[in-house]
């Protein structure tokens, strides 16, 4: 690599001095749509006749087979795009369960951070164009630019990539790679519905349905601009998680820094204003949430200069009566305002350690 010095980053050069656990419970203000890769099937009892939304049945097992069934030459079942599901082992049985994929939430938060913190011209600094549409010189110039951005801590790229990780290594072996694991782990959990798990307008009980959410079938029926009738082949059904449902996000950030706290504040603000939405069809208002519960727990290591500050604060030690007692100290913050008051930059190694 020619030009300026390459950027080098080692996330845990001084070890792990602290960890921040962030728990948000989110309630859907608008429906959430995250597609499953495999479709389910739905049924309208009287195909090609008048009437709709009555006697609807969802067939979840053998969906592919069912979609071959016909009545009077018309397909009996229409394809239904299912909500994202996975399989879990419960009571020695494999059962399907709906869930909100962590990758989807993580991607949304990363994109939101980029939009807020990075100048428009630099937003694609760490993504290459479609294969073969860039010359070798252009790729090399982009690599130099990427190193410059990180070294100079220009924009918010430095904070974003150290938190989420980086896999920018377009010319392996030729230039210093910008690859490291992120400091944040994120997982999600759908909270069991407070009401019984039902699909709106579906009359027939479906025994094998992964019924862990309250949902509804969204119908998309685009209108032809010339006939003002339904566009042929445009009718689509998809299952959405209904408004009012809740899911949780748990973030664990190692060696949290001021940039992370700043990002948390941005995300909270933008979630509350509706700028950050999760899942698909956000252009139709899907995926707007509100944070109904939040909890922050910061654990600091004995070798951190923040440890004595924690000791001086009169808050209960979360590490007490655990194996970590005396080695780490943990403190809970019920609001982000409390967390903001903390000078997180003090989370560094004590002198002489």
């Amino acid at each position, binding site marked *: 690599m020619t030009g300026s010095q390459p950027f080098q980053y080692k996330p845990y050069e001084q070890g792990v001095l602290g960890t921040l656990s962030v728990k948000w419970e989110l309630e859907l203000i608008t429906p959430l749509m995250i597609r499953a890769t495999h479709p389910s099937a739905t049924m309208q009892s009287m195909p*090609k006749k008048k*009437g709709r939304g*009555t006697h609807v049945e969802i067939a979840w097992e053998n969906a592919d087979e069912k979609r071959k069934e016909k009545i009077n030459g018309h397909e009996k079942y229409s394809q239904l795009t299912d909500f994202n599901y996975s399989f879990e082992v419960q009571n020695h049985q494999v059962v399907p369960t709906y869930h909100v994929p962590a990758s989807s939430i993580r991607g949304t938060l990363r994109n939101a951070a980029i939009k807020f913190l990075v100048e428009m011209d630099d937003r694609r600094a760490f993504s290459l*164009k479609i294969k073969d549409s860039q010359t070798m010189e252009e790729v090399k110039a982009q690599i130099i630019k990427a190193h410059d951005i990180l070294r100079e801590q220009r924009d918010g790229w430095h904070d974003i990539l150290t938190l989420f990780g980086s896999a920018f290594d377009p010319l392996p072996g030729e230039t210093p790679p910008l690859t490291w694991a992120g400091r944040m782990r994120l997982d999600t959990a759908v909270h069991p519905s407070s009401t019984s798990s039902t699909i*709106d307008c579906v009359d027939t009980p479906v025994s094998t349905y992964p019924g862990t959410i309250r949902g509804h079938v969204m119908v998309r029926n685009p209108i032809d*601009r*010339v*006939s003002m009738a339904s566009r042929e082949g445009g009718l689509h059904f998809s299952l959405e998680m209904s*408004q009012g449902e809740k899911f949780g996000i748990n973030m664990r950030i190692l060696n949290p820094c001021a940039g992370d706290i700043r990002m948390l504040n941005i995300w909270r603000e933008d979630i509350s204003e509706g700028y950050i939405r999760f899942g698909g069809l956000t252009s139709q*208002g899907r995926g707007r949430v509100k944070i109904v519960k939040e909890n922050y727990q910061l654990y600091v290591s004995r070798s951190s200069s923040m440890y004595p500050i924690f000791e001086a604060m009169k808050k209960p030690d979360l590490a007490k009566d655990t194996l970590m007692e005396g080695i780490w100290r943990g403190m809970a913050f019920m609001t982000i305002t409390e967390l903001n008051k903390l000078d997180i930059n003090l989370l560094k190694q004590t002198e002489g350690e």
Partner: protein
Amino acid sequence: MAHNMNPFDFVPFPAEKPVLKTIAEWLKSGSLLTGWIESQITALTPVHIVGRQEADGSGRKIIRSHFYRRHGQAYIPASSIRGMLRAFIEAVCNGWAAQLTTYFKKEPEKHQIGFQVLDSREELEKKECLNLIDPEFRENHFALPDGFSMPQKLKEEESEDMKVDLASFLFGYIPPKGDGFHGRISIEDAAISPGNLSFNGDTFRIPDIQSDAFMGGGKPSASSWWYQKAYKIRLNRNNMPEFIGSGYRGRKFYYHQDPKKCLEWYFDESKWPRDTRRPLYSCPIECLEEKTSSEPFRIYFEGLPAELLNLLLFTFSPGKRIRHKLGYGKAYGYGSIAFTLHNGQLRTDTGKTDLAIKQMVPDIHISLLNKDKRERPKWCEFLHLSSLAAMAKILCFEPESTIIFSYPPFSTNAQFPGFLPSVRRGKLNAALIAQQKNALDQDNEFLIDDAGAKLIAKKLASKNVRPALHFEVYRETSKDYLTIEKRTLENAL
């Protein structure tokens, strides 16, 4: 006696190609703004969004049509609001025509003549049904004018060749093949409070015929000059004349009218003939009542150039009299709506600021009225003014108007019944000039231009033979045609 105006009309496709720009070029239309606008939808006439529809045992008659709900909560779906606004922008800004059915193959009782709306040969061959397209329309003569179809695949977003229309820039586009791109506008569902919904003692109704099909269901046929322009007259195997149309007239929009008066008209037997095989009935529909509003909902915009925010505000509230139509039963007067824009917010690097919507909207209307083009702000350049003028004729909302718009009544002639009755050769001959008659005798067909087609349609209509053959002739001989013609853009704004 002259007939009523047809309930819909077309905003013609302009002679010039749609306005296309790269994303980078659209982005140059002002500083980029992110924020939201809070709005409510007010019903100017009752609004019905189809939810659950109960049908009778035959499946040919709807007993009751409920408003769209999710878990008991009624909504006007965001997709309906978006679709309506996008269709408006496509039309008045000379953009592509989205969401088109790409071909209509020959099907008994549906389409006598198969035709392609846009080049669909690849798909038709794949499905082995190219033979169901009339030979006349297999290779060329697509119904959509050249340049108005959306691309099947987009070039790379940063490429200089990747040009899109304004509506796609605003609302996004996912082509059938390859990657799409996000739009810049996001619209939420508009919730409806239960107190504003009712069947009004079952007086909110729409007319329908007891049949598998819905009355008024759009059928852009190539065997009439209704949706498509006149192209040819030819004789079929039974020596019966076929009036072949080719080339869509434009984008369809419905006129505003009073649904109560319209319904009364349809149920007056002296005005709308009865077909005993497909009796007329009416179905109660649950509506957002007139003069009531939805709950407030937000329209978000992200990275929207300032000039295009002005255009968006104009689109919500296009002048004093242009109003949108939304939902079901538009042909019968339902679904006239107005947006009320309450407030808004701009998000900046340093925080949030209020968007002075209430001052911005009147300024937008005033600026468009400025006769000196040079004095008009930049966003006005995005409008295709003759298309907007055509739109103003259709979407001009005049609450005091008594005009009734209704579909052409079907023929009760026992031999040639229906909405598109056949015409006997002898009756057609009487409307042709000698040269045309000879061509038909010798070649079984002749090409025809629009002026010639109108002349034939007028002659036939004067004898009450297929009066709804030619869309423009039917419109021009309607009793309220001149009143509609007097509607101008200036008055509508």
